């Protein structure tokens, strides 16, 4: 059973460009959350998707948007990239129907903005 997968592994973009990161949740999970981890910091919550809707959102500008597909996979889009968007982007999946399970994290996508 594959865990949470993310693509691509690494990405290099220039300021002003747009980027799309992808996440496939763990089998049986229907909720996907995205986190940004800047260098030397703890991860920060961006938003969470459930039933193809944004259910929660952290303190991130509208340049950060997302989408969830019927198969529960998700995309994170960032427009008008800034140097400060350079970070490790982590995806986590979970299932609200589980009584003991918690969120599982993927390996992350490292985004470098030049």
């Amino acid at each position, binding site marked *: 059973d594959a865990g949470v997968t993310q693509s691509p592994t690494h990405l290099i973009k220039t300021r002003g460009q747009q980027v799309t990161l992808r996440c496939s949740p763990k089998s049986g999970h229907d*909720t996907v*959350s995205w*986190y940004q981890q800047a260098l*030397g*910091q*703890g*991860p*920060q*919550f961006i938003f*969470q998707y459930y039933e193809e809707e944004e259910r*929660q959102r*952290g303190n991130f500008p509208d340049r950060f948007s997302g989408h969830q597909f019927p198969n529960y996979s998700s995309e994170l889009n960032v427009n008008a990239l800034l140097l400060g968007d350079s970070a*490790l982007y*982590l995806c*986590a999946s*979970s*299932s*609200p129907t*589980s009584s*003991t*399970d*918690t*969120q*599982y*994290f*993927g*390996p*992350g996508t490292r985004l470098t903005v030049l």
Partner: protein
Amino acid sequence: AQSVTQLDSQVPVFEEAPVELRCNYSSSVSVYLFWYVQYPNQGLQLLLKYLSGSTLVKGINGFEAEFNKSQTSFHLRKPSVHISDTAEYFCAVSRDRDDKIIFGKGTRLHILP
């Protein structure tokens, strides 16, 4: 709102010595507590979690943590560390199992030979 404070940004410890990584949290509601480990250039791996029940929680790789509600702490301990434990450790809190997770800033565990 919840918050997490990891009191030490770096902890150096000799190999085979015991270690404690400190974590305090703040919340107006009951929370779930977690410790994650991040090895260099990798994602997050769950070490252990406290959801309810016994306040002493055992995790992977010989780690354990104790939930102390009165002191709002969730310190991580290991009786004997190995060089392979070199990593960044994150304490985290959430209101529910699939709610957003609030992370501390991390503690870098540096194992000395």
